[in-house]
């Protein structure tokens, strides 16, 4: 009786283990795809660079900003503030090994 039980038990255990491993792998795979999709939705932060007579300042990007836009006088000497750059701050990629974390 115990001989049959042992053989059957081992085969069932191996089968279950294989199925479990496949399910875990597929879950990780799916999670990875979803993570990638979620990452795609993330928007970088945009920064506008302004120049007033050589003095460079930055601020958050506003809709309608573009490089070369003259924003008006910025001091009493008749100098004007203009946008000289717009750039995106992107998140650094995660290190290898933390793929599923």
């Amino acid at each position, binding site marked *: *009786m115990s*001989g*049959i039980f042992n*053989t059957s038990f081992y085969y069932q255990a191996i089968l279950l283990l294989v199925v479990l491993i496949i399910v875990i792998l597929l879950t990780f795979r799916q999670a990875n*795809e979803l993570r*990638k*999709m979620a990452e*795609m939705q993330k*928007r*970088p932060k*945009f*920064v506008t*660079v302004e120049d007033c007579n050589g003095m460079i300042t930055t601020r958050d*990007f506003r*809709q*309608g*900003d*573009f*490089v*070369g*836009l*003259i924003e008006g006088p910025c001091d009493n000497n008749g100098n004007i503030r*203009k946008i*000289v*750059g*717009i*750039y*995106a*701050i*992107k998140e650094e990629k995660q290190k290898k090994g933390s793929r599923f974390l």
Partner: protein
Amino acid sequence: MVGIAAVENWVYLLINIVWVLIFVLYLFGFGNYLQVYWWKADIKNKLAVLNDMANSARNKTLEFMNKNKAKDASKTLDRLIDFFAIDPVNIEPTDIINRLRHIINLRDTKFKQTFEISMPEANDVARSIASTAAEISSALFLIYKYVQHILLSSDKTKNWYMIMYLSLMMPQIMQIANIYRKALDDFLEGVPVGDGAGPIVALKLSNYKKEWREIDEDTVMAESEYNGRKILLVKAKGPGSTVGRPGEATAKVIKESLAKGEKVSLLITVDAALKFEGEETGTIAEGVGAAIGDPGPEKIMFERIAAEYNIPLRAVIVKMGMDEAIMAMDKKILDGTDKAVERVKQIIEEESRPGDTVVIAGIGNTAGVGQ
């Protein structure tokens, strides 16, 4: 006990039969079948993601068009998504550049006209952004349809090699699709993309002060001065999303300048260029020739005008990856434009004399870069 031993024997026999069966099946290609099945499952999984990307791009474009009060936005976009341009005949190369230019210009005009009709209340910037968004959506649908076509036709013809090839290519295809999808959001935001490095350099060389005038379709020029040289700057008309016609415009500018009796001693093109993997983004390099990545008609205009009047044709490039070229501009690229300005000035000083005229063309998409 005897009964139990008999059952055990049967179990062992069954297991042996299964092993032999598996061995025989593998001998006759069952392993390949399993492998192909796995590849197909992987491709189908990624195809579903591609379909999602294309549909979300379409929805985002529609949302933008509707926000700008477009008429029949859905119909207009669906018509443009399937729009195509047929390459000219190349086994007879005579006049191929003019034929190619004609087709490219026709395609651009068609897109432009479509959005003028569909979005009459919107300004040029919004229309050009919608046009670029439609092109990106079209590219994403094309990728999806192409992958689906290869999968289905190779399945139909039992071409396992094609499935294997497609499966191996899928990571790269997904990467390209991802870049396009992300680029769409950046274009809709109206921020400069990496490819805008050339127009930014032109703008910086103009000192942001000079008057720009339209010299060709979506292309503007301005005059500036640097250490006694007259500088003629050419760029696409911003801040909408367009590359303009810099080749045609530069040829016009040079001919106008020569007609006035000026000595055009140098022609410099500044553009974004693909870096090699491992190279730093935003680094610059210089060379000779026309730095422009169009299919040919604009590039050849630079070469022809430079060769015709024996004007040295110099190139300055700002290096970046393919993804960085069509996505929102990185700080390293913006810093690279300052280095490019300095290099252009250095070339001007070394290769022209005070009193000469120097023509500089800032090549690239001018989204988010005005004048």
